[in-house]
């Protein structure tokens, strides 16, 4: 998604330019690329960091592109930090360090006209693997007719998280599923189709019905308390241990100020 990356870069530059001119003499720049799910959080954190004593007078440039792009970019030294919404994989390049900065709830979502009261893990697996194909077989569903699965493409970190948290290692999403290439397209499809079901990062669930998982509603409060089981990690990935300004930024993200920002839409570490 080159276009998104460029747009995001332009937006990030516009954001940082007025702050960066103040003490341009010893200004340093952090560049980041990667997950579209982490990018909104990284942007909020960067805004606050540039106003903090350690960050003042520096610049942060945020590009997007997907978790895998962030990880590859940082391992090749193209950016200071990569953003990843998935856990480290054995096949990842060597010499990189995953620094956890937040957690995020992955919600199962349906059309607002189909407020399903709860789903168990087995039910979710049955629905998404295609064993159950009609809403009449799902208790509490008000929709009728076939179930429309709306999922993300393979390169998405959210898809990876959904697979790991809900489906396990052996089951796969049914081949008939509709696959969308971005969070926005996926949410739009579920919003306009009363028979749809899908999954989304908590920050992208506005206007959709979030289905309680194992009886626990997918809310920030439940995810923070640990009652909601469907959560994943957000990382800033560095090449070797983070140094200089990048180290300060990660420390800021993990500090109480940073975690207060995390708490607005995501799940803080503590």
């Amino acid at each position, binding site marked *: *998604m*080159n276009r998104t990356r460029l747009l995001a870069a332009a937006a990030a530059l516009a954001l940082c330019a007025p702050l960066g001119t103040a003490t341009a003499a010893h200004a340093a720049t952090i560049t980041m690329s990667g997950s579209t799910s982490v990018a909104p959080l990284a942007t909020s954190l960067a805004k606050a960091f540039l106003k903090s004593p350690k960050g003042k007078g520096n610049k942060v440039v945020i590009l997007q*592109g*997907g978790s*895998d*792009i962030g990880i*590859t970019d940082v391992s090749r030294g193209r950016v200071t930090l990569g953003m990843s919404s998935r856990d480290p994989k*054995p*096949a*990842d*390049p060597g010499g990189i360090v995953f620094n956890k900065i937040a957690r995020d709830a992955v919600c199962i979502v349906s059309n607002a006209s189909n407020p399903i009261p709860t789903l168990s893990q087995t039910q979710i697996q049955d629905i998404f693997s*295609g064993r159950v*194909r*009609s809403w009449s077989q799902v208790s509490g569903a008000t929709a*009728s*007719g*076939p179930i*429309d*699965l*709306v999922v993300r*493409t*393979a*390169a*998405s970190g959210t898809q990876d998280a959904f697979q790991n948290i809900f489906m396990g290692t052996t089951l*796969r999403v049914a*081949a*008939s*599923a*509709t*696959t*969308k*290439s971005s969070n926005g*397209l996926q949410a*739009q*499809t579920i919003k*306009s*189709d009363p*028979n*749809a079901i899908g999954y989304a990062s908590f920050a992208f669930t506005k206007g959709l019905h979030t289905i309680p998982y194992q009886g626990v509603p997918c809310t920030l409060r439940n995810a923070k308390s640990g009652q909601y089981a469907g959560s994943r990690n957000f990382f800033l990935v560095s090449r070797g241990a983070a140094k200089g300004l990048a180290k300060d930024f990660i420390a800021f993200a993990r500090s109480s100020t940073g975690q207060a920002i995390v708490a607005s839409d995501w799940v803080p570490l503590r």
Partner: protein
Amino acid sequence: MFNPATPGFWSDRRVERMLGAVACLVLLLIIGMIAFVFAKAWPSFAHNGLAWFSSGGDVDRQLEDIFNSPSNPADYVYELHAWPLLWGTAVVTFGAVLIGIAFSLFAAIFIVEFAPPRLSGLLEPVVRLLAAVPSVVYGLIGILVIVPWVGEHLISIERKESVANVVQLDGSSIGVGIMILTIMIVPIMIAIVVDALRAVPRSWTEGASALGVNRWRVTWSIVVRTARPAVVAAAVLATARALGEAIMLSMVSGSASFAPNPIDGFTFLFEPTRPLASALVENVEGLTVVPFGQTLFAFAAVLLVSSMFLSLAGFVAKQSMRKYGVQP
């Protein structure tokens, strides 16, 4: 003082060489690009052989396996049967171009031969404006308005259930894709055909009129016949645009890599498909995974070759019409 005998630095010979160099540069760029794309795409073709173009299994799942290849180059996964993508590309492209040819020919005839001058003076700039609308705008209208409407009003639950085990019908479909693509390519075709109809020598039509032939027959048997090469040129250009259209199709029809089946009758139009260019755009996130990137380059190579054959076919088709034709 200007002295024609000593042209100075810009002598004709020097200018000729410099312009020649620029033209050769374009040629070099094209050759370089083709070589680059094919070199990148080669592993994907080499591993699959002709099976690359066949059907078998689920393309989305094959792409996922390629994406999740182990990091050791010897264990890279390449297996791919891309037929659903090729079939989807062909159906959407030719569907839109065939409807577009008929539509744009008649619209152009009206603008040139029948419309009152004030109306054609209004229509022509509007058509040219429409030709310049970016495809993503059409895509947005498609996904926000047309796709939900089709999903809600045209697809019955029985129709959905009849194919539910194979594919989901949610409105994003081959039919909507063809419709919006037609709307996208028609303006550019009208613009080309209008220019060609205008270029037909007036004396030819006046001669026919003087013999008492009515306006429609003059138009059909002389003007349109003469302008045939331009219609072919318009079709080739429109096909090239349709072939490469990615964003809009990915938004309104590309929800699954499925090969819609004409045997399904009317349902065929409501089945989703993902043309090659859309598949490329939707998977760009995974470009850094080596075998996945090579597979995407294979898509690009197929698109490149198809558009080359397209230009060639257009050229050949125009040869037989050259005698009385006007060139656009």
